[in-house]
């Protein structure tokens, strides 16, 4: 368990009540003090109303999930108070506008911090005053100087003019003073680390990863929870010289990106499962034409429109089976926002080397979460390897001898881009020969067809040597081995600490690279494991099925969650203990989501 400072703040209210602003101010304040942050926003597909619940976990060491507990609850409406007050334990505080919100039953030791907003501000009309006042109370409870908040408010509202800044500072000051007179600050004040951290969302990490990897063409159709990538790209397009286009649909997106990639530019696009379904035919065409590019699927709960604002790891098989036909592709599921940033550069190099499409599986948890990151850990100049790319316009012509799909020893053919004199050729989605001439119609030739299938497949024959194999993390000879993939990386790590604290030796295997898959290495690890439990954020156990197919290993049990909310560490710990106690009929443990949202 965490020995240091570990603290969770939640802000609940309806859409339109302005949760984002105090959330942003707090996030910036924390990371500037060098504190680590993991924020998860449980929201609804609604612009006004509904219930939104932002959880921000802060610590003086790295945090990898939104945690299990609540220490400070800010209720912007009665609904939040009614739903969540009962989740507070001794030592926690609830902050609310006492003019409009009434607390209900409360556990012993919970401090109720009611703010009489009218008395403090003399204003009944400004509905956002309670948000600013709450920041004043929070800053006091956290043991911070008011000047820190004043500076943050100036930064947040500076664009709106001096009058807005000063009125917010006035309200915050009144609340800070009110809190100082009446409420007891938390026993441990907010610590201060030396090095300030940066803050970003997972979507920003994906976009930045693209920018650092040399993406100069990005196109998309807006779809939650992937839209943040488009927003970052659009905002930065001019400064970074990136061509950014919003397209009429995801079919157009994928095809436009392919057209761009064919010119030699690094092209990327992002969507969610529904849009990815529309892209799939084009993904196969990129494989057939041997045009490298990166498709990001930010998974949300499905099927169909599903639950647009909730998370799930439900598209693994969609990615595995994306597009008709039998072809090679890369599939990678980043573990965190920081990992997503680095993964984009890595996977572009692979796509370019092997001239094939690559699929990145993110999910709502990673993409829309807000996280701290040490800025010095971000390599803004990753290696950029374009493979056998010919785009030298001054090169001497080779007309008549250049074959786009030359059947080389490694299967990878020199790739010339349009505009290059002397390398004129046609790329085709129909099967073609080495020259690019169609063999699907009158020239049908089974020998050539076989040759081309084998050539494309052979390209990836050494790809595994460029992908790190999965490893055991944690104690050797553990009683339980947890296996997860993608975004469950962080929460499983934190769950392991709880499991060990409950007296069970546990280790884990985190899988990031799905295709091509290190089946031999994985089989070796699984053969040595005593009890394998697979953790995934879906109902049917998509990864469990994949793993059985690749290795022949069946897990001893499963921990799955498919209610739209991400795992909290104790869900996994409870699942492990239940499995060990033999209390999981059917072998699948499904944790109950406490109503924190």
């Amino acid at each position: 368990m965490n020995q240091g400072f570990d603290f969770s703040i939640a802000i609940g209210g309806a859409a339109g009540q302005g949760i984002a602003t105090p959330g942003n101010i707090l996030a910036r304040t924390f990371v500037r003090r060098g504190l680590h942050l993991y924020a998860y926003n449980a929201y609804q597909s609604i612009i006004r109303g509904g219930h939104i619940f932002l959880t921000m976990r802060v610590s003086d060491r790295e945090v990898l999930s939104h945690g299990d507990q609540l220490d400070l609850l800010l209720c912007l409406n009665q609904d939040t108070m009614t739903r969540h007050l009962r989740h507070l334990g001794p030592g926690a505080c609830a902050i609310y506008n006492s003019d409009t919100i009434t607390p209900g039953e409360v556990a012993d030791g919970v401090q109720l911090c009611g703010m009489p907003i009218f008395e403090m501000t003399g204003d009944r009309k400004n509905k956002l005053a309670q948000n600013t006042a709450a920041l004043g109370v929070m800053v006091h409870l956290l043991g911070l100087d008011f000047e820190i908040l004043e500076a943050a408010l100036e930064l947040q509202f500076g664009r709106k003019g001096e009058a807005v800044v000063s009125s917010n500072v006035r309200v915050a000051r009144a609340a800070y003073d009110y809190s100082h007179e009446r409420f007891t600050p938390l026993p441990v004040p907010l610590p201060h680390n030396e090095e300030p951290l940066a803050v970003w969302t997972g979507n920003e990490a994906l976009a930045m990863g693209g920018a650092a990897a040399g993406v100069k063409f990005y196109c998309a159709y807006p779809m939650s929870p992937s839209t943040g990538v488009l927003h970052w790209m659009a905002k930065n397009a001019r400064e970074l010289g990136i061509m950014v286009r919003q397209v009429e649909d995801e079919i157009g997106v994928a095809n436009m990106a392919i057209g761009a990639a064919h010119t030699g530019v690094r092209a990327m696009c992002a969507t969610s499962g529904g849009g990815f379904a529309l892209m799939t035919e084009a993904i196969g065409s990129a494989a057939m034409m041997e045009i490298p590019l990166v498709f990001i699927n930010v998974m949300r709960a499905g099927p169909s429109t599903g639950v647009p604002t909730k998370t799930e790891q439900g598209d693994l098989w969609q990615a595995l089976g994306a597009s008709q036909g039998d072809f090679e592709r890369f599939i990678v599921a980043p573990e965190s926002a920081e990992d997503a940033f680095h993964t984009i550069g890595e996977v572009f190099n692979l796509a370019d080397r092997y001239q094939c499409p690559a699929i990145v599986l993110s999910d709502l948890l990673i993409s829309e979460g807000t996280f701290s990151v040490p800025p010095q850990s971000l390599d803004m100049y990753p290696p950029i390897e374009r493979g056998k790319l010919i785009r030298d316009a001054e090169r001497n012509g080779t007309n008549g001898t250049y074959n786009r799909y030359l059947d080389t020893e490694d299967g990878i053919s020199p790739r010339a881009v349009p505009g290059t004199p002397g390398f004129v050729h046609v790329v085709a989605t129909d099967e073609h020969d080495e020259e690019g001439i169609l063999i699907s119609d009158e020239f049908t030739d089974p020998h050539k067809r076989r040759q081309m299938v084998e050539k494309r497949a052979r390209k990836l024959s050494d790809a595994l040597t460029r992908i790190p194999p999965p490893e055991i993390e944690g104690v050797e000879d553990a009683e339980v081995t947890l296996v997860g993939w993608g975004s469950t990386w962080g929460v499983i790590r934190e769950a392991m600490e709880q499991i060990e604290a409950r007296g069970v030796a546990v280790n884990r295997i985190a899988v990031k690279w799905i295709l091509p898959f290190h089946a031999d290495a994985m089989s070796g690890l699984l053969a040595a494991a005593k009890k394998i439990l697979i953790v995934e954020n879906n109902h049917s156990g998509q990864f469990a099925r994949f793993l059985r197919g690749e290795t022949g290993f069946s897990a001893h049990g499963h921990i799955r969650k498919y209610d739209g909310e991400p795992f909290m560490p104790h869900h996994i710990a409870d699942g492990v203990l239940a499995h060990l106690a033999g209390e999981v009929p059917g072998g699948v443990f499904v944790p109950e989501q406490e109503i924190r949202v």
Partner: protein
Amino acid sequence: MTVELRHKPLTAKDFKGKVDPDWCPGCGDFALLRATQMTVAKLGLQPHEIVCVSGIGCSSNFPGFFGSYGMHTLHGRALAVATGVKMANQNLTILVTGGDGDGYGIGGNHFTHTARRNVDLTYLVMNNQIYGLTTGQVSPSSSVGMKTKSTPFGNVERPVNPITSAIMNGATYVARGFSGNIKQLRTLIEGAINHPGFAVIDVFSPCVTFNRDNTYAFFRGRVVPLEKEGHDPGDWKSACERAMEWGDRIYTGLFFQDPTVAPLHALEPILDDAPPVCQVPEPLTATQADRIIQRMM
């Protein structure tokens, strides 16, 4: 003083593809291929400066028979792919070729939005009013009453009007040609390639195998070249009125042109006096990288 010619003058023959067309003998598509080869040669274009993008269908086999860079993409997606090519390398001349099913049916959405964006492409639609490669089903441009394998009792749906659709959606060069008039086709294609924006030429290209209604003979008796009618291509209302005529008189020629609308790539600030994005070095500059990090702090 010596003048070094970078490229020798080319002829239509230099734009032959690696294989000869496998279209049915008499297919209207031959005429468009020939007219296009003659026109790009006349304009002094080099094979490596052109990308010919197509979808799927008989006419979409065009890039394989044409001697330039080519992309034979998915059914209906040629315009989306071509837009990507153009926006990543605005220096290329891009021809998009396909049929009525590819462009007005499965690709209809892209047709609308490519026109709206005024992407600088030359779109040559070989309109035979039938699905030929799938052996004769009704198409979005088939006439009412037409009997096909999928409408054995006659088509009840009204056809799309490619000319008025293109004009209404914002295309800035809209023309109609006929495979029986190569001379006019050459003029129209030349105008389309020189036009800075989305240029659509709907070409009556008879399917001699599956369409018994809209034959060469059918069109020969009806086509009236607009250039002989004193039509003003700047007048979109007159253009639409003439495009709606379908009977004894069917107009061909340039219906509409508006050269004042900027093509999409000219509206993109990052391309102002700049090389194509495909030629910009990939790594971020130090200034760019530092600013990104600063905004996260």
